[in-house]
C-alpha cells in the first residue's frame, strides 16, 4: 500500500495548478460580482485540452480516470477560482459518462469530440421543484409520438443552462403510478436548448455567481428518437452510474476551496501584526487553523481512496459518499475559520474569503445533502433500517 501520486499525476497537477493560478483572485471576485461567465478562464483550459481529460482517447480525450479529473478540479478550486471555476467544466468532465457508457455510436461521435475540445457546453437537467433527492417524483414527461417524443415539464437548479447548447435531460416516459417500480419508466435524452420551446430563468442565489443556475420550462418540445440515450425506461439506472463520480469530483472541489481558504488565513495570520506580534502566534488563531489542516488532510485521504476505487472498477458508494461528507464539512469549516482569522476584514470582499465561504456552503447541499449521506451510511454501511 502506498499513498503517492504517480509522476503523471504529479505533472498534471502541477500543470493544472500553474494554469489555474494565472487567474488571480480579483478576476474571480469581479466575475462573481458582475455575474459574468468566466470565458477567458474556460477558454484557457479548453485550449489546453484539459476538458477532455476523462473522455476516451478515441473521441479526442485524454482517457484518464476520475482520480486525474479530481486533481484537476481540486487545483482549480484551490487556486481561488472556487466553485465558479469548477462549475463551468465539471459537467463536461463527468456528466458525459452516460453517453460514453450508454450512448449510440452516432451520438458519441456527435458529442464527445466537441465536448473534449470545449466547444460544446452541456448542462444536466435532473432536479425539479417537487423532485430533488427523490428523483422518481419527476413529472417532466416525454410522450412518445411519431418519430420521437414531445416533452413538457419543468426543471430547477440547472447550472449553466443559459450558456449551454445541449442538456442531458431525464424525463418520465411512463408515469410513476403505471411503472412496475418507481425507478422504472424514466429515460435520458440529449436535447438541444431551443429557446423557442425552452424558457430559462436565472435564480438569484447566495454565491458562485459567475455561473448561473436556472429554472427551466419545457413547453411542447418535439425531439427525434435519436435524442434518446440508451434504452427507453432505463434512464434512472444510467443516472446512477454518474452519481459516485460526481460525488468524488465535488468532494475534491470542496477540498480545494478549503485549501484556498486555509492558505489565505495562514498568510494573514503570519502577516497581521496586533499587539506587536503576528496574530498567528496566538493559539486562539493557530489552533483552529491547525485543526482545519488536519480535517482537510483526513478528508483528502477518503476522497483519494474513493477515486482510486472507482478507477479500479471497485464498488465505491460508501467511500464516494463519505468523501463528499468529509470534504464538504472540512472545506466549509476552513472557509469559516478563514473569515474568523481575518477578523472584520474577512467580511470584506477585498480579502476573498467571504466568497470562498459562500461557495463552500453549497457543498453541504449538493450534489447530495450531508443528511442524505448520513442516511446512506446508516442504511448501506451499518445496515440500519431505512428511515424515509
Amino acid at each position, binding site marked *: 500500500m502506498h499513498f503517492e501520486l504517480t*509522476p*503523471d499525476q504529479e*505533472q*498534471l497537477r*502541477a*500543470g493544472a495548478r*500553474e*494554469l489555474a493560478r*494565472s487567474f488571480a483572485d480579483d478576476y474571480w471576485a469581479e466575475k462573481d460580482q458582475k455575474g459574468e461567465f468566466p470565458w477567458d478562464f474556460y477558454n*484557457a483550459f479548453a*485550449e*489546453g*485540452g*484539459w476538458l*477532455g*481529460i476523462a473522455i476516451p482517447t478515441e473521441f479526442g480525450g*485524454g482517457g484518464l480516470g476520475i482520480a486525474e479529473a479530481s486533481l484537476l478540479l481540486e487545483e482549480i478550486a484551490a487556486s481561488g477560482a472556487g466553485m465558479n471555476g469548477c462549475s463551468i467544466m465539471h459537467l463536461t468532465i463527468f456528466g458525459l459518462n452516460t453517453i460514453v457508457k450508454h450512448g449510440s455510436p452516432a451520438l458519441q461521435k456527435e458529442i464527445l469530440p466537441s465536448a473534449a475540445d470545449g466547444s460544446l457546453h452541456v448542462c444536466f437537467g435532473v432536479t425539479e421543484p417537487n423532485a430533488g433527492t427523490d428523483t422518481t417524483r419527476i413529472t417532466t414527461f416525454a410522450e412518445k409520438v411519431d418519430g420521437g417524443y414531445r416533452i413538457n415539464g419543468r426543471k430547477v437548479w440547472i447550472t449553466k443552462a443559459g450558456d449551454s447548447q445541449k442538456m442531458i435531460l431525464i424525463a418520465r416516459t411512463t408515469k410513476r403510478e403505471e411503472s412496475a417500480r418507481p425507478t422504472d419508466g424514466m429515460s435520458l435524452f440529449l436535447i438541444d436548448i431551443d429557446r423557442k420551446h425552452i424558457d430559462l430563468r436565472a435564480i438569484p442565489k447566495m454565491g458562485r455567481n459567475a455561473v448561473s443556475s436556472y429554472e427551466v420550462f419545457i413547453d411542447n418540445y418535439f425531439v427525434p428518437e435519436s435524442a434518446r440515450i440508451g434504452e427507453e425506461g432505463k434512464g434512472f439506472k444510467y443516472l446512477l452510474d454518474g452519481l459516485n463520480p460526481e460525488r468524488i469530483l465535488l468532494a475534491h472541489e470542496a477540498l480545494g476551496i478549503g485549501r484556498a481558504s486555509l492558505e489565505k488565513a495562514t498568510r494573514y495570520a503570519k502577516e497581521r501584526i496586533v499587539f506587536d506580534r503576528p496574530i498567528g502566534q496566538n493559539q486562539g488563531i493557530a489552533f483552529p487553523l491547525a485543526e482545519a489542516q488536519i480535517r482537510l488532510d483526513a478528508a483528502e485521504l477518503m476522497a483519494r481512496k474513493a477515486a482510486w476505487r472507482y478507477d479500479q472498477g471497485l464498488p465505491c458508494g460508501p467511500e464516494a459518499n463519505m468523501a463528499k461528507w468529509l470534504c464538504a464539512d472540512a472545506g466549509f469549516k476552513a472557509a469559516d475559520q478563514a473569515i474568523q482569522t481575518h477578523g472584520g476584514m474577512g467580511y470584506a470582499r477585498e480579502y476573498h474569503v467571504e466568497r470562498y465561504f459562500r461557495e463552500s456552503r453549497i457543498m453541504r447541499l449538493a450534489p447530495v445533502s450531508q443528511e442524505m449521506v448520513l442516511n446512506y451510511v446508516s442504511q448501506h454501511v451499518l445496515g440500519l433500517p431505512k428511515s424515509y
Partner: protein
Amino acid sequence: MNIVVTVKQVPDTWAEKKLDASDKTVDRKSVDNVMNEMDEYGVEEALKIKEAHGGEVTVVTMGPEKAVETIRKALSMGADKAVHLTDESLHGSDALATSAALAKVISTLSPDLIITSSEASDARGGVMGALLAERLGLPQLTQARKVTVDPGANKVSVERLADNGYALVEATLPAVVGVVEKINQPRYPSFKGIMAAKKKPLTKLSAADAGLDAGSVGLAGATSTVVDAQPAPPRQSGTIVKDEGDGGAKVAAFLAAQKLI
C-alpha cells in the same frame, strides 16, 4: 533549425534559499524546486523559432536526478527531446566547471542556435551564456528582447536591451543567444503536452558518458570556493520622504537614484 535551450532546476523563487552547512552548496533538499523562471522564456523563444522555421528543440540540463522534473516541464511546453547530465561527481560545480560540462554535451548536438536565459534565480551569476559561447567558439548575443532568425542568410539578429533603449546586433549561425523576460510570454504546458512529454526521447548522461574528466567538475574541479556565507539581513524599513512642499521632487530624485525613472 536545430535549437538547443539550456534549463536549470532551482529552489522555488519565493522560498528562502539556504546553503548546505557541510559543503556550502545550494540546499536543494529542504525546498520545492522548480524550473528557473527565466528559462521558461528561453524555452518559449526556442519553440517560437521552431514554429516559424521548423526544426527541433533539444533541452539540456545539468543537475541532480530530480532535475528531470524541469526537463519534463520543458518537454510539456513542446520541446522535442532532452539531455540530462547527472552525476554525483558534478555536485558543487561552479560556473566555469558547469559551462565546461554543458559545452561538451552541447557540442555533440551540433546546434544552429543555443538559447540561454539571462540568469538563474539561485546563484544569479548571469554568465552561462557568455561562458558557453567562449567554450564553443561561437558568437554570443545577450540581453535579447527580440530575436529574428534568418536561416536562409544563416544569421540571427536581436534587439539587445540597453540602459537607454536597445541595440540591434547580429551574428552568423551557429550562435548563443541570451534572452530576457521581456521577450515573450511563456506558454503553459497543455494537458496533451504533459501527456506527450513522457514519450519524448530523454538521454541521461553520466559524467563519464559525456567524456568529462572527474577532476575537472564538481567541488573538486571548482575554481572558486565559498568560504563563508551569511543569511540575507532582514529587510530594512523604507525611506520616508517628508513633504515640505518639495515631496514630489524628493520622490523623483529617489527614483532616479534607483534608476527607476
